[in-house]
């Protein structure tokens, strides 16, 4: 009994930092519609900055002062990021800012590494609270009790600010229609900056507060991000009491998980999230998401047209150059381009459901990695030949997509995105923790192509055929009635449903289609590499694809593969340098600010400006 209570108390204490980071994220998302992937980085900065301050400031006052100061400093850093990186892209297509924040993550990672070095820092213990107290015989750190006491005050303060003050009302109004708030005389850019400050300060505060419990390390940005997203979603986007409740549930669950089911820790919170969202599609205390509000979506998407003769010529030329590649370049280039093409197919599949269907998935790697694992398992355990495995990989991914899509599509918007993330994590932890079958961390190796295709050049042509074919098929689907129906469901669900379109089913089929194509890419990938590891299922992989789509241009038809080629190429080149993350991050931010329509969108505009491309009569 005593142990039980002690564990609950530990969970409650852990919930403190989690709640602060999550409420910050939720606030920022609520107002700016920016899904701030960099939020974990601000949390990490809070820990590092807090650490340095604690070294400098002595005593009890110094300790608590350092925590508050760390929050303030991180808040100010957040403001700088908001002004320099986000402001220029608020007018870009919805969720485009996501790419920018991804760039910020990379930059902060390398900067932290430069300043504080690679070693983990052990947090100092809180002066005056170093001891433990005994509850029913079990030791509970005094600092935990302090955290348990502090968090509710922060929560109530925030709640009061948002629901009971004028600023809070403005913030909630801006969540929905910032342009209108501006037209009513409110300086919305400062409102945004203020919210960003508050959100980041909360993250920094969370990071500094947990120092005595966890210290600071370079992985904490990503490791908290998953939990934070889960908390925000379970609690309900924008609901502070919800976030608190969810933070407590998740933290306590984690404590018990570690004790009683260490095998399942990684999966546990995602399973909880899936269950909650199945019952309440908008979280425990959340309200229905309204998508596509005024003033946030950037310019309306243009109607699509099949490519004109010039573009066709350009693409054909490109394809010919690609097809002839093995004739004029070395083995290295052939392998590299194979990888790039596979990645392009993966990105194009996500782009199809994202661009045409507005379905933002944070877990598309589940199908890429899923297809790859399916092929690898078939080869390893059933000695399946490559040809059959390449058929079964997309089929398995498609089957998985049918099931996952059914669950995820019960929710919409961010909730949908989070559910896909959860399933991605689920598959990943399965591959990671079910070592007997999947080889766990060691992965599956020796998955080579059939003899006839084992030559790099032959495999290149195989990948070329399947990837180009797949991308063209996705493109055809966009022009076909199916692609139109998908866009109809996105543009106006109400009108679509009122004219006989079963929007959910259309989206479900699209989800499955995209999953199948990603599975094909995964199958090709595994035979190209000869091995597969759990990291192909990781959320980071899904993010890669997402970033690529935005980078290429969501509101264009070719954004997926163009972005894929650019990103994969740049990454391959940059990873040879020490601070490659910094460079890649800056590059991403740079592209985002210069070309908020993505590479293809910007090129198209440039083309129209210099008269190379015809401007549609209504171009905006």
């Amino acid at each position: 009994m005593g142990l039980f209570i002690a564990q609950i108390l530990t969970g409650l204490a852990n919930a403190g930092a989690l709640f602060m980071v999550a409420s910050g994220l939720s606030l920022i998302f609520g107002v700016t519609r920016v899904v701030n992937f960099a939020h974990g980085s601000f949390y990490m900065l809070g820990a590092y900055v807090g650490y340095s301050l604690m070294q400098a400031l002595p005593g009890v006052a110094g300790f608590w002062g350092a925590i508050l100061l760390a929050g303030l400093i991180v808040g100010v850093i957040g403001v700088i990021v908001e002004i320099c990186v986000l402001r220029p892209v608020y007018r870009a297509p919805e969720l485009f800012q996501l790419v920018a924040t991804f760039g910020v993550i990379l930059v902060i990672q390398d900067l932290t590494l430069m300043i504080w070095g690679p070693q983990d820092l052990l947090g100092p213990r809180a002066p005056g609270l170093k001891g433990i107290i005994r509850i029913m015989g079990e030791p509970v750190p005094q600092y935990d009790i302090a955290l348990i006491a502090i968090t509710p005050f922060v929560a109530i303060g925030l709640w009061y600010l948002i629901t009971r003050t004028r600023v809070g009302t403005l913030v909630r109004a801006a969540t929905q229609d910032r342009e209108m708030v501006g037209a009513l005389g409110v300086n919305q850019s400062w409102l945004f900056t203020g919210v960003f400050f508050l959100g980041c300060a909360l993250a920094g505060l969370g990071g500094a507060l947990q120092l005595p419990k966890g210290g600071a390390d370079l992985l904490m940005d990503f490791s908290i991000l998953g939990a934070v997203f889960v908390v925000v979603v379970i609690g309900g986007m924008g609901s502070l009491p919800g976030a608190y409740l969810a933070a407590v549930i998740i933290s306590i669950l984690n404590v018990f998980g570690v004790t009683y089911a260490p095998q399942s820790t990684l999966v546990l919170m995602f399973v909880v999230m899936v269950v909650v969202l199945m019952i309440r599609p908008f979280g425990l205390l959340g309200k229905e998401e309204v998508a596509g509000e005024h003033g946030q979506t950037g310019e309306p998407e243009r109607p699509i047209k099949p490519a004109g003769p010039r573009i066709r010529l350009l693409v054909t030329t490109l394809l010919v150059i690609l097809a002839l590649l093995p004739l004029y370049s070395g083995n290295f280039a052939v392998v590299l381009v194979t990888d790039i093409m596979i990645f392009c197919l993966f990105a194009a599949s996500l782009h199809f459901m994202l661009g045409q269907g507005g379905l933002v998935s944070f877990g598309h790697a589940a199908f890429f990695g899923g297809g790859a694992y399916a092929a690898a398992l078939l080869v390893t355990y059933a000695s399946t030949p490559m040809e059959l495995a390449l058929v079964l990989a997309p089929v398995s991914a498609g089957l998985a997509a049918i099931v996952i899509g059914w669950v995820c599509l019960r929710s919409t918007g961010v909730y949908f995105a989070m559910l896909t993330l959860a399933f991605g994590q689920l598959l990943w932890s399965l591959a990671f923790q079910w070592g007997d079958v999947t080889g766990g961390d060691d992965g599956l190796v020796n998955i080579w192509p059939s003899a006839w295709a084992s030559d790099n050049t032959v495999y290149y042509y195989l990948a070329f055929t399947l990837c180009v074919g797949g991308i063209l098929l996705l493109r055809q689907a966009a022009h076909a009635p199916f692609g139109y129906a998908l866009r109809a469901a996105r543009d106006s669900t109400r009108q679509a449903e009122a004219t006989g379109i079963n929007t959910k089913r259309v989206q479900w089929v699209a989800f499955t289609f995209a999953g199948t194509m990603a599975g094909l890419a995964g199958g090709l990938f595994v035979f190209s590499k000869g091995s597969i590891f759990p990291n192909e299922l990781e959320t980071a992989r899904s993010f890669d694809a997402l970033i690529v789509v935005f980078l290429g241009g969501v509101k264009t038809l070719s954004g997926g593969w163009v972005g894929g080629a650019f990103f994969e190429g740049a990454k391959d080149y940059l990873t040879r340098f020490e601070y490659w993350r910094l460079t890649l991050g800056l590059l991403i931010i740079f592209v985002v600010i210069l070309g908020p329509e993505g590479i293809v969108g910007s090129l198209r505009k440039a083309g129209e400006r210099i008269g190379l491309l015809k401007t549609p009569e209504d171009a905006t």
Partner: protein
Amino acid sequence: MSPILSVRNLSRNFGAIKAVDDVSFDLAKGELLALIGPNGAGKSTCFNMLMGQLRPSSGTVQLMGKNIAGMQPRKIWRMGVGRTFQITATYVSMTVVENVQMALISHHRRLYSLTSFAHKLYRDKALALLETVGMADQADRHCAVLAYGDLKRLELAVALAHDPVLLLMDEPTAGMAPRERIALMQLTADILAQRGISVLFTEHDMDVVFAHSHRIMVLNRGQLIAEGTVDEIRNNRQVQEVYLGGGTLFKAAEDDAHA
């Protein structure tokens, strides 16, 4: 002749608010029936229940003898009911004609086709429909840049795409210029005469209502308070009080204008 639509004891509550309270009426084939009433009387709620967007708290809705209350909108649409919305809903990423084509594609059940080009399907039929609402010249414009009034006409073209037997129009002429309003309702009346479809519509513009409706029902606080011909309604004391108003101010301005 049996009615196309027959509504019995239809009610809908939102918490304590009785938005629609025990409404019953019939709609005959070829009839143009207006539903008017003050703001918040429950007209849109009524429409939403007829079209399946909202589930009635109680009551039945029979379309040609079949109860459709509580059915999904897309099923009701397939049974031959078209509608336009009070706040327009169109596909902003498509061109005007593609919006109509989309409804035609859905009607012909080609939604899952992958082999054809959507922008080529049923284009002629779609253009003909746009012609009837006078939008043919804007067929290839981007829907996102249309003026509000044009969106309304586009919605009408979309609603006519599947040759409906019944058309529900929630404030069809809102946002349009006066002459175009009359023209649109004239158009609706013509279509109705040609194709024998029935129309139920709401409107706050009395010029439109009085010029075209065959019969008028008045809803106030969820209840039907009057029903009758144009003249009966125009001269109904209670309707004047809760809805029509005296019109004295406007009459004075009008007189000035002609003075």
